[in-house]
């Protein structure tokens, strides 16, 4: 079942250090990592970023398989990027391959390779964050980090609530889709064969019940929240108070170190 492969927003419970880190620290770490990744200019930098992620995956114990499964969803973007970079990067010297209007330079191969690596690492590290952090903690962290924006009348709490509900509903809707698909298949519906028009038509028995149930769920949830006197973020206290611990400072320091290391490697200009 292809649907089960979509793991966005799925959380693998665990007790490793990566699970226990403060979610704000993890979000900042992700930011540092992305900064480092996007400033990489040479192989040494990418190698460092790659090894860091591999180490993090090992520590988190979610398994390489789960992280790489997340990459399946973006393979088209990856291939697209690779081809475009391969063909359109101008280079000095003689092209390696040259026919018709296609000129492939050594620089093109290099850029394509680095871009693919960059996208894959970017996606994997984001997946690692959602795998090791429950959606509720993640939105708590977001709300806390964006807190200063409240002064500018940005509805931070509401945005965080919308996000946490959306994240919570993704796996639910996927499950629901799976269920309705099975039910219609049991009535002989065929989602796989036929041309594009037939395939689109075949989706009606799936989409109508799915929308109906999404609206029903939203309605029920709104009623349930109102019954419990939810009225927005004002004066709301929380059950889980976020508190930085020593390990969070160490983690953030390591994140900064990674950035510094990449900058240094850029300056040294290895490969």
């Amino acid at each position, binding site marked *: 079942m292809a649907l*089960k492969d979509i793991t966005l927003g799925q959380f*693998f419970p665990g007790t490793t250090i990566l699970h226990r880190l403060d979610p704000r620290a993890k979000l900042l770490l992700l930011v540092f990592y992305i900064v480092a990744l996007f400033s990489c200019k040479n192989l040494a930098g990418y190698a460092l970023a790659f090894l860091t992620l591999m180490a993090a995956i090992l520590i988190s114990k*979610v398994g390489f*398989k789960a992280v790489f499964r997340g990459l399946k969803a973006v393979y088209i973007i990856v291939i697209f990027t690779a081809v475009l970079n391969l063909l359109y990067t101008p280079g000095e010297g003689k092209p390696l391959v040259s026919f018709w209007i296609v000129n492939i330079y050594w620089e093109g191969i290099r850029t394509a390779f680095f871009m693919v690596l960059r996208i894959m690492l970017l996606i994997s590290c984001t997946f690692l964050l959602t795998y090791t952090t429950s959606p509720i903690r993640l939105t708590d962290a977001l709300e806390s980090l964006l807190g200063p924006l409240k002064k500018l009348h940005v509805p931070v709490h509401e945005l965080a609530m919308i996000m946490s509900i959306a994240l919570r509903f993704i796996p639910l809707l996927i499950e629901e889709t799976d269920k309705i698909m099975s039910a219609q298949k*049991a009535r002989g519906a065929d989602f796989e064969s036929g041309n594009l028009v037939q395939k689109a038509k075949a989706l009606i028995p799936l989409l109508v019940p799915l929308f109906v149930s999404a609206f029903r769920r939203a309605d029920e949830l709104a009623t349930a929240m109102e019954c419990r006197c939810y009225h927005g973020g004002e004066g709301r206290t929380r059950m889980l108070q976020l508190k930085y611990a020593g390990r969070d400072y160490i983690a953030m320091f390591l994140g900064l170190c990674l950035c510094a290391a990449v900058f240094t490697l850029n300056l040294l200009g290895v490969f």
Partner: protein
Amino acid sequence: MEPIIETQKLSHIYSAGTPFQHAALVDVDFCAYPGEYLGIIGHTGSGKSTLIQHLNGLLKPTSGRVLVEGKDIWESKEATRRARFQVGLVFQYPEYQLFEETVYKDIAFGPKNMGLDEGEIDRRVREAAQFVGLKDETLEASPFELSGGQKRRVAIAGVIAMEPAVLILDEPTAGLDPVGVERILGNIRDYHKAKNATIIIVSHSMEEMARTADRLVVIDEGRIPFEGAPGEVFSHVDQLEGMGLGVPRMTRVLHLLREKGIDINDSAYTVEQAKTAVLAALQKGGNV
């Protein structure tokens, strides 16, 4: 008698290779015979829903075989598709699968997918609607205007209209009031009698199963610990309770009497049978 549907050493593992890996079925040998009214009972998460989704080829076994009328349903694409129509499956809360503009069109969805001609589709839709007690004017209504119980009956009619030789229903009475429960069970019995079809009902309600099924199959942690006639199955009171399943109230009362040292047959599960058992015990003991 040859079983109409059979599984051989059927195993299914969910999410293999992730931290969620979970064996839902382990080497299950299950069979149902033509014309039988079979009950599958098990606690939530016991694997009963996984089992029935194998019976019409919605799930592919991790290992083992599923045979319908002696033929492996995974032999070819056509065999799988044939199994879908031979074995009708009504899911839990089937009212959430309705999608057409009218009840008629929704019931006709299955027969249409079978490639039948207009006349045959019309006959089947009307017959199926009759089985579940839907009036003719309801056929032209939108399924979203109906009450919960009516929606459920429309959804069941949608599967009945395919006239499957085996009709499987997953908790068909969940969330209905007692009158609704009786109506649905009556509809299913009518179909059973009229078409001599095999009925497989999944439930965790022992009372309901005791009343309706000829034979019971118990599922626990992906295995079948025991099966047999209701009286036979209910004699395993302690094991059933260990699995988080109850026994019918009558069986429970008689079992408690037996534990108190009274010589009484505790395999009864209806009020009538219990009365006979109590009278027999009174006659035997004389001074109970």
